[in-house]
Structure formats: C-alpha cells, structure tokens
C-alpha cells in the first residue's frame, strides 16, 4: 500500500513538472531534400505522439538507399542536410518548421540524429532543433550495403512557465524575523574566544612584541 502511494505521488510530481495545459496529440511529417524526383522536398517519414504529456514517439521512417547516400556525399564538401517538418496538432495544421545539420557530420555519425521539439504550454511546437548524435563509431563509416537504417531520437522539450517574483518566501522571511525580534534577540551561544578573538589577538601580539623587545636591556643591565 505504501509503495502504491509513493508511485502515485511520483506520477503526480511528474505531471506537475511537465507544464502542459491539456494533453493532445502531435503529428510531425518529416521531409528532406535527398533523392527527390521533382519536388524540392520529399517524404522521409513521420513522428507521431498520441500524448504530448507522456512524450513517447512513434517514429516511422524510410531507409536510405545508395541514392540518398550519394547525394549526401555530394553535399559533404560543406553542404547541409535540411529537414522540413510539417507539424500538426489538434489546434493547428501543417506548420512549417525547417532545421538542418551539416551533411558531413550526419554521414560521420552513421545517420543518427536527435530531434528536439520545443512545445509551448498549450501544446504548440515553436521550434525543432536537429542535431547529430555523438557516436563512438569511427569517423569514416563505409556505406557498402544497399539499405541503411536511420537512427533518430526524438525528444519533447517544454517551454516552462517562468517563475513569478518570489513574494511569498520573502514575506515568510520577514515574518520569521519579526517573530525573532518579538521573542528577543537570539542568544549568542558562541564561546568567549570565538566572539572576541579580533580584540584578543592584537593584544596578544602586542604583548609578545613588547616582551621580545624588553629582555635585551634587562640583560645589558645585568652585565
């Protein structure tokens, strides 16, 4: 029973952490510029989420063939690999967002990328950032087979509601101080030395210096 309450509580906390007004679905059509016949952009796949709150994506993408790879290699010099996404939610339809990576880096990573979608509290996507995943694989991967699988990772990132000016805790602090003042000043329970060391040390030094200087004339007098 205790376990259950803890789980229930943690789920609640999670829900609060993700600041969405209401849950909804999200569908992202992913298009790219590679191996297209007539159009500028052609389909690469789609990412769909049943619930933005859970953030679990279903990624359905084509596999790259030699045509794709060759085009990527042509662009490798210092070209870019651009991704056009059409984002649809319950509220809006086909909002065009474009993002890109360097083609060279994309090839080096073994066609693995990270897509981050930034979502407003009302569930609308404002920006997508496409980044190449850091892989431990060697930099010169050879593309020899006929089909290559795309390795995409998708994350939802939430635009957090910004904090309000922290008036509550400040008022609490003031109240606490007021209470303390009413009770009388807090008793200082430090030791005598801890309290007045800054007065004692100079005196001690002064005594030591004068003590060190004095013996000499005394010795002379004895002679």
């Amino acid at each position, binding site marked *: 029973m205790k376990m259950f309450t803890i789980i229930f509580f943690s789920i609640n906390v999670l829900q609060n952490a993700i600041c969405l007004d209401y849950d909804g679905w999200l569908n992202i059509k992913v298009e790219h510029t590679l191996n297209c016949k007539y159009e500028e952009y052609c389909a690469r796949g789609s990412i769909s989420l049943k619930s933005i709150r859970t953030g679990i994506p279903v990624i359905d993408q084509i596999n790259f063939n030699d045509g794709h790879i060759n085009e990527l290699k042509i662009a490798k010099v210092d070209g870019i690999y651009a991704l056009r996404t059409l984002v649809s939610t319950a509220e809006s339809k086909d909002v065009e967002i474009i993002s890109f990576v360097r083609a060279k880096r994309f090839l080096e990573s073994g066609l693995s990328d*990270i897509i981050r979608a930034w979502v407003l509290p009302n569930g609308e996507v404002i920006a997508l950032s496409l980044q190449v995943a850091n892989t431990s694989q060697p930099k010169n991967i050879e593309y020899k087979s006929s089909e290559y699988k795309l390795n995409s990772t998708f994350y939802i990132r939430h635009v957090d509601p910004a904090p309000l000016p922290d008036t509550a805790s400040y008022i609490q602090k003031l109240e606490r101080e007021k209470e303390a003042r009413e009770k009388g000043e807090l008793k200082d329970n430090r030791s005598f030395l801890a309290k007045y060391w800054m007065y004692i040390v100079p005196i001690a030094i002064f005594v030591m210096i004068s003590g060190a200087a004095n013996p000499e004339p005394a010795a002379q007098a004895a002679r």
Partner: protein
Amino acid sequence: MGVLSSNLKPSFLGLLKFLNNMNWFIVFFSLINISVCIYEDQIGKFDWRQTYVGRIKFAQFDTVSTAKKIIVATEENVLAALNLKTGQVVWRHVFETASTGNIQLLHVGEKVTTVTGSNPYLVRGWDSNTGVLIWEWSLTVQNDLTEYSQWWVQNNMLVHVLPVFGSHIEVTMYNLLTGSNRGASSMLPAIWTNERCILTAPHYTCISGPLESQLLLSIDVTSNAVKIISKPLTDYVDIQQTVSVNLRPLGGNSIIPGFVLGNDKIVFIRDNNFEKSKVQLGDKSASATVVDGANGHILVQTWMDDVTGFTLTADSVSTGKEVTDIYCSDKTLNIPKPELLAVMCTRTSREQNACRLLINAADDAVHLMQQGGRALWAREEALSRARAVEFVELPVSDTDAALESEFDQKEGSVWSAFARRLLTQYQQLQNLIRSLQGESAVQKTPSSLVRDYFNLHRIIVIVTDAGKIFGIDNLSGEILWRRYEAGLSAQSASVFTRRSARTPPHHAHLSVVATQRDTGNGFILSLNPITGELIDEGKLILNVRLLQCMMLHVPDSEKLHALVLLDEKENVLVLPSSAAPLVEDVYMYVAEKDTAKVQGYSLRFDGKGVRAQRTWAARLGGAGAARVAATATRSRLEHVRAPGRALADRSVLYKYSNPNLVLFVVERLDPLYKEEVVAVALDVVSGALAGAAAHRRARALPLAAHADNCFVYLYRSEKHRRLELATMELYEGKERWLEPGVPFSSLESNQVPIVEHQAFILPATPTAAAFTITERSLTDRHVLLGLSSGAVVELPWAYLEARRDESLPVAAPELPLPADATLNYNRTLQRVSALHAAPAGLESTSLVLVTGLDLFYTRVAPSKTFDLLKDDFDYYLITIVLSALIVATYSTKYFASRKMLKQAWK
C-alpha cells in the same frame, strides 16, 4: 560739543570695530563654498546633457516680458521658451506623446496660451517668464469630424472653426481665461467648402467649383454679418495652372491675412476684398510672411535653390520696393527648405530695420538670423530623434602611427629596420625637445582628435530620424561635423564601423545602412567618421528593399570589413564586391515582426557570387497570432574572457557563452490565458533553441538586453497589474563542454544548456534597457534602465542574477531603486528612448550615451575605478613622504656610522 564727541567717540569706534569684525566674518564665510550634496564638485566633470525640444511647429517672439524669449511649440509635443540671445532652453514643458499632447495652437500675448489634445481639448495659459501654469480648462466638441478644426485667438477670445464639408462652418468663441461661451456656435452657410481650404485668420478661404469655373471664396468667420468674397480663380492665376492650383497661407504669424496662390502669386485680404500683391513670390518653394517694418508693412521671403543658395528678400507691401538692408544671398549657408517660423522687425534710430528671423529647415535645425542673413544661433533639433548610435575610436597621433608602422613592416632587411628605428627615435627625441620648449600646445591644436592613453576620447556618430548624421565629441558634447541626407530614412538604420582608425595609413570607415524615404529601398552611406566626409562608395541607393545586413567578421586586404546585405528577393550583395570570396561560413537570420516567424540563411561564395540558402525556420509564437516585441543581440564590441563563475563552495560553474544567441521576446494570444509572453533564446546559426520561458497573462514591452550568458527583458503582468523584469542565465554546468581554447561552434554542439530563470517587480516604468560593456567583460555587469521619470538607473547584475545560491538570504522580490543609483543625478532626461554603451580602453569603465528628447553622456564604472587613481589622489603628500623617508634613511645611516665609530673609540 566736546562732551558729546567724547561720549560718541568710544561708541563710534566700537561700531567701527564691530563693522570691521563683521567684515571679516563676511570675508570668512564667502570663502566657504556651501555644498548641498556629495560629489557636487563632480557635476559635469565626466558627463554632459543637451536639452532639445524637437522639430518646431509654432513659434512666436515674446515681446511683452523684459527678458526676450521665443516661445515654441513642437511636433514632439513640447512647449518651451528659448533665450533670444543664446538659443538655450529657458523653460520647457513636455506633454504626452499620444494625441492628447498634440499642440494645436500657440498664442503669445501677455500670457502664453496653448490648445492641446484632440477632442477633448485642453486650453492652458502659461506665464511666459517662468513657464508656470496659470489657468486651464477643457473643451469637448460635439462633432465627430474634429480633425479639420482650426483655432486662433482674437481679442481675448478663443475662436474655434469647424468646417462641415458641403454644408456650413461652425464657429464658436470662448472666453480665453474662463472658457465661458459667448453664445451658441454660429453656423455660417458654406455649401461650397471642400478640402482645398485654409484658414487665414480671421478669414476662411477655399477654392471651389467645377474645374473650368473655379471660384476663390473667402469668409470672415468672426464678423456678425455674413460676407462672402467670391472671385473667379482665373482673375489671379493662368487658366493652365488652375487644374491643381496650390493654396497655402502665409507663414510666420503674418500680420495681414493673405495666402500664396499657385506658384508665385500672393493675395492679401483687405477691407473684405482680395488684393493682389505687388510683389511676386521669388521661388515656388519660398516661405513668405508680412511683418511690420520701419516703413510700413514688409513682405519677407526666404528660399533655397541651387543657383543662389540661401536667399532672403524683403519688399515693401505698399510700394513693392525692395528693402535692401534685409536682403541676403549666401551660397555657403546650408538651410534646406527654409521656412519662416517667426519674424520680428523693429525700427532703429536711423529708420533702418533691425530684424530677428526664426527659420526652420527640413533637417529640423532652427536658425535665428539677423537682417542681412547673419546667423545668431542655430539649434540642431534633429538630435531629439536619434535612431542609431556608434562610438568611433580616434586615430593615433602621428608619432604613434610611425612607431606602429615600424612593427608592421614585414619585408626589408635588418639594416633597413635598424635605419627605421634610428629615424623614429630621432623623431621622438625631436618631439621631446619640442615639448620641453613648450611647443606641445601648438602641436596639439591642429590634430587634437587623437586617441588618448585610456581611449576615453571618442566620436559619437548619431543617425537621426530627419536624415541628418552628426559626429559629436564625447568629452565636450560639441558637434564636430554634420551631414544632411534628404532621402535617408533612419527608421531601421544600423551603423557599422567597418574599419577603425587604428590601422594607418587607412582612414576610418563607417557605413550607415538605412532606407530611402520614398521607396523604402536600401540606402547606404559610407563616410569617414572623423571628418564626416563621404568615402569609397559614398552614397549608394539600391533599387531593392533590404531584409538584413551584417558586417563580415574577417577584414579584407585593406583591413576593411565588408558589408553583407540580404535583399527581399533573397539575393546577397557584398560591399565591396571584391570581398565576396571571403564569405565563408556566414549565417544570417531574418525575423518577421508581425508573425514571429524567424528564418535562417547560410551564405556561401560559389565561385561567382554569394548565394543565400534558407537553412532553418521557426514559428516562435506557434501557429496563432504573435508578434516579436523585442530582440536583443550581443554587442559586437563585447569580448568575454571569463568562462565561468566561482561559487560559494569554491567550485566553478561554467557559463554557456554562445555568441550566436539572440533573445526574442514574443507576444502571442492564447485562447485560454489571453496574452502570453514567450521569451526565446535562439541560436541564430543553427536554429536551435537554447532556452525559453513563458509568462502567462502578460504583455511584452519592447525592452530586452543580452550580454554573455545573461538575458533581461521586461513585461507587464496583467494579472498583478505591475511591471516585471525577468532574467535568464544559461550555464553548461560544473563540467566544461569544450576544452579551453577550442572555438565554439553552434553546429558542432548537441547539448542543451541549463537555464535559470528569475523575475522581479520593478516599481517604475522603464523606457529603455541596456547592459554596460567593458573591454574584457571582467568587471561586474550592470543593467541600465531609462525610466519615464527622467532617471537612468544602474542595477548591479548581482541583484538580478537568475541563479540563486541557496546559502544566500532571500532577495527582495521588488527591486530597490536607490536614489544614488541614478546616473544622471538631478538632470532629468525627458523621454529616454535608448541607451548605448561602449567599452573604454580602461577595463573598469564603460561609456554611456542616453538618447531621447535629451542627450546625456556619462561614463560608468560598475566595479568602481579599480584601475585608476582617485581624482583627489594627493601626489604632493606622497612625494613629500617618499622624499622625507629617503632623507631619513640616509641621515640615519650617517648617524649610525658615526655612532659605530664613536663606540669603536671607546
């Protein structure tokens, strides 16, 4: 008698003695300078303020009061009195910027009267000496078409004329002091009124009728009996001209009602009749008025043309003869489109005219002239609407330049280098001898515009709305050069220092990228910021609108940074075109203000030209309606040297110091929460989002600033009905992502920084915000806020830090604005519109220019002047102490040796 004198004598002596004592007291007290504030002696030492009033709309000479003044009302909704002798502001009232502050009428009689606002109107009376408000009453007109209202003052009555087109004219008179109505409004039948009408008080004059038989009609609106003067227009102008004949009233408070008809005809209205003037207009664009001269009325005209330059003429109205003592024609005077604002002529003893003419120009400058065209003073009112500001470094002195060129030479043998070294050292020796002879002052005067040791002396280049560009000395506030470009619209101007004066033999190069006034096309002006002369491509007007402009980060072989311009057809223009191959790995962004759509472009040179390719696009407001309220970019002048900050537990927190971040403050409409403000920190190279925050039920203010990893923006919280200031900081964390020394690349990183947020309540209304900038960003950072109260306050970033140490006590949620944080102490700055900061050569100091209706320059030291000796540093004391110590050391040495000797003899 003797008794009396002996009695008086001691008391008289006593009195004398007493007076003597008093005298000493007076002398003594007069030596003490009473100070009423701390650092009073530093007022104006590092700062200056210039007060402006804006482009003048109405002006009248105040001849009633003893101190001669000119009362002016301006388009910036300012009422002010200018000193007749110096042109300085005697007093000034700044009204609201909205239409409620719009000045409709200025009348100077015994008191100054103004009508401001637009239905309801406010009628106010001011004391002309002090500017104190004497009376005020409001007036609401029960009519919707009040925008064609005309006002004037006649016999202590305020007359309001409201034409109702096609039917009648409504005339209402009010008592000027009380506002009591003399009777109901009278309706004058005027079925002919159309839009070509003017008021030539007390007559209302129109051109009306079908094209072939147009009539010139005039009606005296104040007379009890309705009298309409009606004449065919062809009596006055040629039939060919009547198609679109021009009708405008005489300017400058003309004392006879009259108007200018067509290109050159002047017609007066006298005894209920039109009377053709004997004198014709000298030029189509001339401004004319009638004043009372030495021998009757004279008609004064002024214009500017290419042949004769500035021309001022005067003719007698009754005889048509020219009044020669006023005439002036000067090619050197540059007063574009002169307009007579007010003219006053008095008779001298020799029946001569002594005139004062106040002339307004198209460049918003106002000139006061004497008869004969002698300028008494001029005010550059264009500076009240500054749009873009750049601090320009001064060139090094000739000797320093020679020294630097010595190290620049790469070719040449050892011997030539040695010879050059000898030569420069000979020059330095010469300079030294010359300076010892006291000739340094002579040497300095012709080239005083040289860089000082701490690089505090700059030229501030200001581009104004009127299209006038100024070069101002930052230490004195003196205008060094000015340049007027009639076609330049500075609404969205940017200024780039493409080559600093640091690179002799090349001169400094500054470019202004603006738009052309009529077409909105690109307008590029290249000039030498030290002299104000056009250089290189000079004035370049493109035939396409520009989307974005930037300065290339790498200089070409002549150390000139190229301008890269992106036009609306997404074509790229590189200036100079020879620098196109340098465009490599260049990225640009374009934000649509009304939709919050932001796009990024990658620019590359493909062998022939530079091509822009769209690489990313984002909708910062989502799919719904949104607008960008403010953007903030990092200053080009900022170089960050500190990679992290030390925490209380002595560990280091590394900053996410991405130079490509831009802060967008977007206001969007949310169906649930109404307005919402979204602040987005976007990497404009990769299009990746670094941090964002949403504020519900808030409206954005167009104020944001960004420096290093800090962001600050302001918004109005609709829920709490207050202004709030939000800050955002980005951190990498306790571990550094990149090795030290590795350059940052937006495209290589795939990590997301930690974002810290904080919000504060601001108990004031800000109108401008900026960060201070120092040479190496090691000094503390302060936020400067221009407030509507006329103060510019300095807030330490430590108060605003988004990242709060848990160990520190809870900060007050309401920001303190202590009086000693005000930069401009008691010098109120009206309508602060922008704050500009630039680093000085000293790390501790940042130079600040505040623009708005006033200009204010100062320098700030956020961490105090740690690298500078104090002003009151006692050089004498330290010299005396040092020399005394040396003397004491040697004398004790001497005495000690003597003592040793004596002891040895014992």
